[in-house]
């Protein structure tokens, strides 16, 4: 009897938990505001282009790391930088991209390396954003991912969901639509905006261990393959390239890390995807980064864009 009571109480509490999450879904939180505003601005840019276009899809490494004007001139096509935040994770970023891609478009994905290691666990940003701004995306996830999402809503996030206020557009600070140009690129990331605090932030970062964490069976490959097939079905060319990443010695010296960066493109190609460029060519020194190991300064951005152009030119030859 004890266990039956224990079990039933547990189930009731779980149902109660699901209910209170669902009742607050679609309540806009303050923390999700900037991403929402930026996506709205970028979606408008994309939807206003009537011609076949190039769309950049990734997290914030591409938001900071792509000079769309330079790319547009090189490719002779309109370019939209549709990258916002890697914290939204692979399933949502791809889901969102599908909404603006049209027949004949080219989608370039300079994904953060963490995206190749997505294992189904939702991040704080993904939970916050989907529950407050885009609840339809929740239903596109697998049952297990939905369970993880519901279970991982923090008490604080729940409180924020009930304690919401009406949308108030972000107009100040580094992140927000006011700092996005007409292509969708980040503004104000030149050296003159790089504060001491940002430099300290960069100093405090440590080398990542994506090589050690890499799992061939990670859920990310299912999403990537599905997205690749979807693009093919819709006459969209899908090209993966390396994301911008700060250079650390261990990426060259550690066996597992080196293996990862030497092989990630080969693995993608083996899985039927088009991958252009080598990760080491997209690792830049610290001075070219702005406030995180993924965010380039405007100078670094031009360097990365030049690398993309050059890789595409070599590839087409």
């Amino acid at each position: 009897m004890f266990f039956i009571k224990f079990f039933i109480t547990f189930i009731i509490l779980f149902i109660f938990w699901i209910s209170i999450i669902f009742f607050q879904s679609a309540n806009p939180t303050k923390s999700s505001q900037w991403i929402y505003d930026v996506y709205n601005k970028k979606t408008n840019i994309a939807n206003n282009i009537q011609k076949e276009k190039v769309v950049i899809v990734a997290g914030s490494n591409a938001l900071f790391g792509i000079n769309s004007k330079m790319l547009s001139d090189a490719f002779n096509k309109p370019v939209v930088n549709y990258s916002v935040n890697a914290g939204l994770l692979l399933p949502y970023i791809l889901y969102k991209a599908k909404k603006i891609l049209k027949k004949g478009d080219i989608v370039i994905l300079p994904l953060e390396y963490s995206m190749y290691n997505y294992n189904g666990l939702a991040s704080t940003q993904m939970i916050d954003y989907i529950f407050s701004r885009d609840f339809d995306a929740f239903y596109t996830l697998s049952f297990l991912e939905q369970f993880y999402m519901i279970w991982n809503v923090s008490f604080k996030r729940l409180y924020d969901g009930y304690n919401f206020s009406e949308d108030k557009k972000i107009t100040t600070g580094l992140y927000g639509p006011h700092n996005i140009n007409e292509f969708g690129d980040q503004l104000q990331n030149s050296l003159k905006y790089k504060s001491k605090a940002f430099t300290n932030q960069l100093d405090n970062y440590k080398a990542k261990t994506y090589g050690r964490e890499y799992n061939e069976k990670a859920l990310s490959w299912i999403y990537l393959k599905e997205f690749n097939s979807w693009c093919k079905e819709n006459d969209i060319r899908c090209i993966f390239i390396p994301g911008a990443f700060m250079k650390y010695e261990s990426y060259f010296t550690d066996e597992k890390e080196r293996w990862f960066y030497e092989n990630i493109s080969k693995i993608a190609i083996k899985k039927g995807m088009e991958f252009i460029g080598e990760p080491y060519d997209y690792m830049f020194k610290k001075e070219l980064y702005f406030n995180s190991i993924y965010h380039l300064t405007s100078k670094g951005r031009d360097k990365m864009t030049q690398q993309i152009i050059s890789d595409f030119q070599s590839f087409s030859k």
Partner: protein
Amino acid sequence: MLFNTYNFIFYFLFPTIIIYKFIPNNFKLWYLIIVSVIFYIQWDLIHFFILFTSITINYIFANIIYKVSSYKRVLLWFIIFLNIALLGYFKYSGLLHFSDENIVLPLAISFFTFQQIAYLYDVYREKIILESLHRYIFFVIFFPQLIAGPIVHYNEIMKQVDDKNLFHITIDKINAGVVLFSIGLFSKVVIADNLLKENYTSWSDIFSYSFMIYFDFSAYANMAIGLALMFGIILPVNFNSPYKARNLIEFWRRWHITLGGFLKEHIYIPLGGNRYGIGKQIFALMTTMIVGGIWHGAGLNFLLWGAGHGIGLVFPVIFKTIKLHKLFSIIITFLYVSLLWVLFFSNNLDEALEIYKFLFSFNSFNIEKIDALWLLLCAVIVWFMPNSMEIINTQKKDFGLKAWYAYISAFLFFVSLKFMADSPSVSFVYFNF
């Protein structure tokens, strides 16, 4: 594997209990040895070899002490010295810069060392009949109490193993175990971990630490007893509302009871205890507590922490006739213990003195609303609620279980699991020793 992780609860504990239920009685001991080894190996394989070597050597010496008729005492001292030397090497060589290498303290080394010393002493006193190695291994390695106690005597546990009525799962034992485990898990992940602070610079921070370590240790004690109950073993009570103590003597009868008992039995009493007048008793008390302090860490701050507790213990011995109001005594004892925690958590004496200076400048009474609420909640639980050993009475046959405990423990378990999903697991304070 920490008790407060999903891996432990879902991948280790659940399957272990379910399989245990179907294991024939003859193999249960072996089964528990194997799962305890798996549990320990999850941390470090090398450290497991240290544990295994320690067990083997101690068992060999126990055999010799048991069988020989002369030099028993010399042999006992020799093997105790070896045990202390091993513990001392790992605990202090890095801290005292005897070695340039970064020596990692093997998990549970203090507790398996103390438990084995207690065993050897019992063998020497002929209180134990020597038994097979696998029974001895089980006594040392049984995973619920391996890491941070309670420190148990051989007969206390092995009698239960022999008693067929006790050493099998009964539904009441599992239920009581679940209640205690849920209380422990809640105390750890919901209360203790949320009282952690980066810096302790105000009076409210000091009280936060006092409550943090209280809930952290009570959590481990409850979880250990609860887990053992799920496997049919009743472990001794190790924590009994120490902040309800009216003086330091009472405090040490309630805080880490089995460690206090170990120090009393092996240091305080051999030094004379209270048998040779007040002067010798004071010496015995101070020595015992200073050794206890140094056991926690090699710094001067730990020595003074032990000495502070020694003075606190001496005080009621000298001033026996002074009777204070109960409430006043409890408050004074709590404040005294809390102030001594500063020496305990500081990295060194200088840091502790800085904090004391700051506290006694009496400018540090600022407190956030949320902190005040936490402290109030802790105070209510600590001083106005029954403790877990009053809720689950391991001396009663039915453990004092009530039907509604199922609802409460399900609630505590659910909320704890939710908190665990939101934040990374934090190790127990006593795992560092």
